[in-house]
């Protein structure tokens, strides 16, 4: 009687120890995997200026970068600020009109870059929606403090997203998981004084 009780408690103890070891192993494995991913990931391929890059939602072609003295809609840049402009061609690859282009490109080597303002070059006005299958020439403008030092060559990363027909919350379609698709080096041209917008 006494022996069987001891055996039982021993068995329970072994079960707990086994479960504990299993849990620790799982934790160590997931930690190791995430460390491995952060160490080996982030290999963003370099692309040439003017290549069309498929980001899922957008076909992005980065053409040039320059400093500008007037925004595309003809307004003067505020005192104490300077404006960095990137000329690009955007084509909406999705099935409906969209204005979700703001996160499609980002600057790698400009500190604290604000959200850029997008202009439609054809109209010299702010850009709203881009219609599917209609590529447009677009200018993205970042307003920065005049004192901020800028690199000679701007590194722009194109961020891609993946389509999910059903998201996990509402089972609604959408674009998720932003990943860096490609990096393009754009030389920054100096501002042409008094040039037309």
């Amino acid at each position, binding site marked *: 009687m006494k022996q069987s009780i001891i055996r039982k408690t021993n068995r329970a103890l072994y079960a707990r120890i086994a479960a504990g070891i299993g849990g620790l192993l799982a934790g160590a494995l997931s930690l190791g995997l995430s460390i491995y991913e952060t160490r080996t990931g982030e290999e963003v391929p370099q692309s040439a200026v003017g290549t069309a890059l498929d980001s899922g939602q957008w076909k992005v072609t980065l053409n040039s970068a320059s400093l500008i003295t007037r925004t595309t809609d003809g307004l003067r840049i505020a005192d104490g600020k300077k404006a960095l402009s990137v000329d690009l061609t955007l084509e909406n690859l999705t*099935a409906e*009109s969209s204005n979700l282009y703001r996160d499609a490109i980002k600057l790698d080597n400009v500190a604290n870059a604000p959200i850029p303002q997008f202009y439609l070059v054809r109209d010299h006005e702010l850009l*709203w929606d881009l219609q599917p299958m*209609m590529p447009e020439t677009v200018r993205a403008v970042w307003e920065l403090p005049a004192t901020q030092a800028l690199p000679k060559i701007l590194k722009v990363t194109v961020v891609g997203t993946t389509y999910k027909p059903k998201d996990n919350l509402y*089972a609604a379609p959408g674009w998720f998981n932003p990943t860096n698709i490609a990096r393009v080096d754009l030389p920054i041209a100096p501002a042409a004084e008094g040039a037309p917008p």
Partner: protein
Amino acid sequence: MIRLLLFLPLIGLSALMLAFLQATTPSYAILTGPIATVGQQKDTVSSRTFSIKVDKIIRARTLAFTRYGKPIERQSAGVWVIASVELQTKKETMTIQAAAIRGASGRLYRQTHRADGAPRLVSTKTLQPGLSSTGIMIFELPEEDAHDMTLIVSKQPSPQLDSEISIKLDQNTVETRDRTEIGDNGN
């Protein structure tokens, strides 16, 4: 033993049934989606909250209008489609903010902001119940998609549990122009 053997197919059957029910459950987005009404261009199409009648469809290469006294001309890589419509709300004062055209390929082209400031735009009008009012909606789409079009109108974009009217547009009534000028009264 025999009872267990009888139970097994029963359990399998119920698992199948549950799997079928799970696979065919409509998603949340569909359950809370628009309440659709479908109609033809020649009819006045009514939903629970508003009704619409398409008067005229114009297709043009160039769009011209005057905004704050300044002439504006808009070119397009595709074509402009301008729909003149007559709208009436039923119960309450409202605005019709969302209009889109589904093209031949199934892509959805929302009304353009490139013509903002043009006169008589539906999106700028407040509709009073019982009073009909006319206006235009302007769309920009590639030429290859500008046939077999369906006009989709609702109070707000992607309405949830709210009326949405789809109207199949009749290709034969589309008037093609090279340049169209949007005036203050009719065109």
